[in-house]
Structures are given as structure tokens and as C-alpha cells.
């Protein structure tokens, strides 16, 4: 019995050590900024993205964010996995122009985007993006919720975190003050304001609503496999629990004659 107890203590200590070490990973420099913890529909073992929020979020991305930010890793066809019909995807994609070619004469040309194309980027390259944004590069949004500490909570906090700078804060020309951006100086001006979009489904477009919808959409863009992952996870874990139970019963039976 003592064997088991001391081995369990050792196991627990090493495991706990691992968790402590991992938890100690401080991801940002400077004083830590507390990001409010929000509830999202896709959290938890059964989480899914709310389809209406995704549609509204796509609309926000298309009408607001996409003026500066690309979404290079997402293809129009991917919208099929969140309930868009083939016809809807075709129509949606056709609004955007992409460069293709060379044609038979060797020239590049533009054509309306097809479902197989990835989301069209607002700028031809990083330099063009910087030139149009006073030297700042608007990052690609495809992985935003995975690429920032705090994930979706951070993104939502950032989008709604624009404030007047506190007295004495030295704000550079053309920059905005944001309560949640590391260092508080952000080159992106507040992108969201009341009724900044007119939702196709008639939802009132409050700042809160817009921020939460576009965060949902970008969370899906970053983890399009999330729903499938969680669904499969349930089956795998249930299988493993049953398997482990049988293995334990078998172990008990086989070991019953050992003293």
C-alpha cells in the first residue's frame, strides 16, 4: 500500500510541476494586462459556433476588417462548412477580384473570385499595405485567436478597448489608445462603432454585438476543425474510458493470484 501511495505522490508532484511550469509561461512583456474572461458558445467539450453569429461576423469582416486585413488561409469554399449553400458561396466570392494568369498572351488578368480561391487580400503585398497604413502592417487575421495570448477574449477586449488616453500618456501622432493592446499604443483606429454595419438579419448593431460576432467568425477562421474535433473527442474519450475499465478489470483478475 505504501508503494502505491508514495508512487502516487511522486506522480502528482511531477504532473503538478508540469502544470506550474506551463502556467508560468508569461506571454507578453511589460506589466500584465488583465483580459476579461468571456463566455463563448464554442468553449467546453460540446461547444459549437453559433451559425447566425458566424454569418454576421463574416459580414463585419467583409464590410469593415477586410479594408485593411487579409484572411489568406481561408477559402470561400470553406464557408460551406458553416452552412452557406454552394450558390451563396459563388455569389459571395464573385464580389471580389483576384489576379490570375498568365493568359495565352502571357499577361496577368483579374477575374471574379471563385469558391476555390482564398479570401482576396486588400493589398498586393506587405509594402503596399504599409504604404496605405502610415507604415503599420495590418496583420493577416486567419489565425488571430490562436496567435494572441488570451485568444478570443483578447480579440474582443481589443476591439472594444478604445478609450481616451489617461492624463500624461504620451500618445504618438496617428496612434490610438487601447486599454488591452500591449503598450496601449495601437496603429489601428477604433474600427467598430454603433451601427457600423447594417446586419442582414436585422440584429441591432451595437459595438458589443459587432465585436462579439466578428470574434466568433475569426475564431472559426482560426480553428475551422473545432466542431469536428470536439465531436470526435467525445467518442475517443468515451471509448478510452471503457477500454481502460476493461483493462483494469482484466488486470485485477490476472493479478488476483499474486501475493
Amino acid at each position: 500500500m505504501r508503494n502505491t501511495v508514495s508512487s502516487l505522490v511522486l506522480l502528482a508532484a511531477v504532473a503538478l510541476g508540469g502544470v506550474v511550469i506551463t502556467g508560468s509561461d508569461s506571454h507578453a512583456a511589460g506589466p500584465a494586462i488583465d483580459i476579461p474572461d468571456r463566455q463563448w458558445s464554442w468553449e467546453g467539450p460540446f461547444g459549437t459556433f453559433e451559425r447566425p453569429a458566424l454569418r454576421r461576423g463574416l459580414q463585419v469582416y467583409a464590410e469593415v476588417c477586410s479594408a485593411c486585413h487579409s484572411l489568406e488561409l481561408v477559402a470561400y469554399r470553406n464557408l460551406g462548412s458553416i452552412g452557406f449553400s454552394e450558390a451563396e458561396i459563388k455569389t459571395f466570392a464573385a464580389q471580389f477580384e483576384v489576379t490570375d494568369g498568365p493568359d495565352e498572351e502571357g499577361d496577368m488578368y483579374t477575374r471574379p473570385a471563385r469558391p476555390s480561391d482564398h479570401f482576396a487580400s486588400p493589398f498586393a503585398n506587405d509594402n503596399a499595405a504599409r504604404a496605405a497604413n502610415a507604415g503599420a502592417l495590418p496583420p493577416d487575421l486567419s489565425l488571430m485567436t490562436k496567435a494572441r495570448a488570451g485568444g478570443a477574449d483578447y480579440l474582443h477586449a481589443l476591439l472594444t478597448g478604445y478609450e481616451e488616453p489617461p492624463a500624461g500618456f504620451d500618445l504618438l501622432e496617428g496612434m490610438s489608445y487601447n486599454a488591452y493592446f500591449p503598450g496601449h499604443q495601437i496603429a489601428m483606429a477604433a474600427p467598430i462603432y454603433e451601427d457600423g454595419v447594417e446586419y442582414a438579419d436585422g440584429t441591432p448593431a451595437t459595438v458589443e454585438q459587432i465585436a462579439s460576432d466578428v470574434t466568433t467568425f475569426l475564431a472559426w477562421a482560426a480553428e475551422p476543425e473545432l466542431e469536428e474535433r470536439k465531436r470526435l473527442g467525445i467518442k475517443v474519450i468515451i471509448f478510452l474510458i471503457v477500454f481502460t475499465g476493461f483493462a483494469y478489470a482484466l488486470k485485477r483478475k490476472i493479478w488476483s493470484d499474486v501475493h
Partner: protein
Amino acid sequence: MASGGIYENPVVKWIEYRLPIFSFVDHSLGSGYPTPKNLNYMWNFGSLAGIVLVIMIVTGIVLAMQYTAHVDYAFASVERIMRDVNYGWLIRYIHMNGASMFFIVVYIHMFRGLYYGSYKAPREILWIIGVLILLAMMATAFMGYVLPWGQMSFWGATVITNLFSAIPLVGDQLVTWLWGGFSVDNPTLNKFFALHYLMPFVIFGLVFVHIWALHRFGSNNPIGVDVKGPQDQIPFHPYYTVKDLFGLGVFLIFFMLFVFYAPNYLGHPDNYIEANPLVTPPHIVPEWYFLPFYAILRAFTDDFFVYQIISLGGWLMTAKLAGVLAMFASIILLMLLPWLDRSKVRSSKFRPVYKQFFWIFLADCVLLGYIGGKPAEGAYVLIGQLATTWYFLHLIVIIPLLGILERPRPVPESISAAVTKSAH
């Protein structure tokens, strides 16, 4: 078992006569391998490590089929795996978290060895090969982390390869050679990919030798007393195969909870930003399993008293070089443990003082890991330096002294004697 006579199946018999593979397997993991009967669940982690290695090799080969080792395409090819390859996300998340699982399992396996004195005679070579496996794993994991070509991949590679520049005279040339150029770039990525694919097979070979050495004297056991006869043993199969199967189930539940429900918890968000040589992340940290060693590396600053002593007041070497040497020494020293520890008693159960120092040492390693994840500023620096000092003090001073000074408790006659006594 001569000429395969015990096997009844004619095909098995025919093969066994020419290639005695059935008796080989039987002697390795079967009923022909006698094992101490009192092994506790801490002895599950060896087989778990072997299984994780196989999982890593299989998922890694599948990933390599879809991965592109080029600075312009590596990041996008990983995202293609995540988005467009059938179950690519699953394979990658298993591989990514599998690396962490491998280290968790191996660290527990090693601390078990420390607690029960498994490294002592006649298992010194077994232990040394184990430390070599750890070193090979660290090299493999480090190079694997570079492959997705995220920000932490790039900057981690830059920081770690730069360490070699501290080596006197040839340091700079060595780093240029490692890089295959003048900075971490495409040749570096290609090289790391080639080596990352090679190293697991080196590990596999080392594991083979590790098991070979293990079978010479068999497993140590919780009381650390040698097996006295058949009454102390049970055949590996079915007793430990079924126990390992149960352990595997528990482990896979833990592993799969990460894969399906927290796949990025053990990673770093910056690695989802494509590598950019022009933008340095504010805080470069290695993966969690390197943090204790990273803390030792960073402990060596110019004013660290241990550095002042070993460098004769800064004359012998730079603090950077001292840090690099200390980091490697922290692992190499483990190989000398069988000779640093003079105590004849293996298990901590009968070494009351060593047992306490064991727990302090474990806590010290965890503390080093915690410090390794913190920025090198303020109190963290001092705590890191004290924890580093303790790490070496434990191995170089305390363990040898305890071997002489400690009075161990009486050790049971045999495994059977100990088991029958505690069972009543």
C-alpha cells in the same frame, strides 16, 4: 527452447528453427521474461515512453508527407495540414502534444529512477543510455519545434544556435556551419528537417540498447533488493502486459484530453505568427520541457557568485560560456550519478535523509522550470541562481555526502519477505 521445439504450430516451428524470433519476443516481453512481482505503477512509464516514441514516429512520417521544408512555404504547409488534409489537424495535434507527453513520461521515468536508485550497480550503463536518450529527445524536440516556422520557431532557433558562439576560438565558425549561412534561414530549416526525421531512429536504436541492458539484470523494484529466486518473480506476460495496458489506457485519456480539448495549451501563441526575422517577440521562451535547463543557462550572469568562483573572477570564461557549459553539465552530471552516489542501498524507502533531499531536488527542478518561463528580471534572477546552485549542490555535494553519512534503515531480506510482511 532449442530448435523451436516448444511451439506446436508447424509454420511457427519452421521459422523459429531458422530465426528464433518467437522465443526472442517471449524473452523480451513475454512469459519468458521474469520480472519482480512488487513493481508499482511508477514502473509503467518505461513502456509508455516506448509507445509514445512509436506514436511520434508514425504521426511524424505522415506529417512529413504533407510538409514543405522551405522558409516561404513551411508555415503555410502546416496550415494546409490543419485545414485541407483529411484529419491533418488530428495528426498534427497528436504529434505536437505527443512531444510534451513524451517528456512528461520520460521525466517521471527518470525521477522514478532517482527515487528508487535504479541507476546503481549493476544498472549503470542502462541509466547512462537513458540519459543519452534524453539528450537525443531534446535535440529532436528542439529541431521539430523549428519546422512550423512560426515566430517562436525562428527566434528559439536563433537563441539556441547562438549559444554555440560562446565556445572559444571556433564558436562563430561553428554557428555559421550549424546555420548553413549567416543567420537562421532556409538551409537551417532544411538541415533541421533532415535531422528531425533522422533522430527518432537514433532514439529507437538507443531504446533497443536500453532494453537490452535492462534485460541483463531485469527491472529494479520499489524496495531495491535484488531478486533472490523465482518466488520473487512473475512472468512479464500476462502480469505486466495487462498492467501496462491499463496504464496505457489512463495515459491515453490524459493525452487525448489535450489533443481534443486543449491542443494549444502547452504551446505558445507566437508560433501561430509566421517567422519574421525583422520582428523579435518581446519574450522568447522555449517549450515547457526545456524551461528548467533554460533557467540554468540564464542564471549565469556576471555577478552570479558561482560564475565568479568557477571562472576565477571572470578570467577563465565569459558568463555566457559558463551558462552553456552549466546547462549541458546539468544533464551530463546525471550520467555520473552511479558513481556520485556511494550508498549501497537503492530505494529511498530505506534512506530517510536521501528521501527528503529527493523531494527537495524535485521541487527545485519544478522551481527552475517556473523561473525559466519568467522574464530574467528582478527577484526571478536571484531565485533562478539559488535554484541553479542547489541543483548542482545536490548532485555534486549532497548525494556523495549522504552516501557516507546517512545511516539507512534495515533492508528486507527479499522481495517476498517484504511483500508478505506488509500484506498482513
